[in-house]
């Protein structure tokens, strides 16, 4: 039985200000740190594209099913995020190891010829993020002080 109640003068002013603010609303990226790539800025895609996230897409198990290339993309283009963290975990589970000086991922191509307390030496596959591809490197010395 309360029915509508008339807006007082101050409410009308508040409404005008709110209405003005309505036309430049905060966007998701306004509350996120600047990223080099892939800002958090939803873009309307054709409705027949999947509009919701894949289920469990923020778990290591999900990332382990991604291709190695995809993991490298996530690692280098989503840095500082949970996605990068999960991609790194998935890579490690596939015996990739991060070289903190070259900032590249290496994987043994065969048993190293030399292994001692300081380093191992042999043939490796590594992912070159500048040329964006996997390369083979023979006679490479992986110093353990650079093993992440």
């Amino acid at each position, binding site marked *: 039985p309360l029915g509508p109640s008339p807006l007082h003068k101050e409410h009308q002013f508040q409404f005008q200000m709110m209405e003005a603010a309505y036309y430049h*609303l*905060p966007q*998701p990226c306004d*509350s*996120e*740190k600047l990223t*080099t790539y*892939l800002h*958090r800025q*939803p873009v309307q895609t054709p409705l027949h594209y999947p509009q*919701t*996230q894949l289920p469990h*897409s*923020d778990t290591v198990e999900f990332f382990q099913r991604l291709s190695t290339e995809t993991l490298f993309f*996530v*690692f*280098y283009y*989503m*840095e*500082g*995020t*949970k*996605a*990068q*963290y*999960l991609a*790194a975990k998935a890579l490690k589970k596939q015996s990739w190891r*991060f070289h*903190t000086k070259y*900032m590249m991922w290496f994987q043994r191509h065969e048993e190293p010829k030399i292994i001692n307390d300081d380093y191992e030496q042999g043939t490796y596959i590594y992912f070159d*993020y500048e040329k964006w591809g996997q390369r083979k490197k023979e006679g490479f010395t992986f110093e353990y002080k650079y093993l*992440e």
Partner: protein
Amino acid sequence: MGQDLTGLGLNLNSQENLHPTFAGPFADQPCRAQDIEHNVPPEYLVN
């Protein structure tokens, strides 16, 4: 009748807490893994 509150983009049956991935009051999707800042080793900050 109010709104169908299951249609506001929140997984109300989630076993996990919602707030760590809450994308904000005006977003109708939770944050994705790439939206959530994470403390990664500084060496990962390649850029």
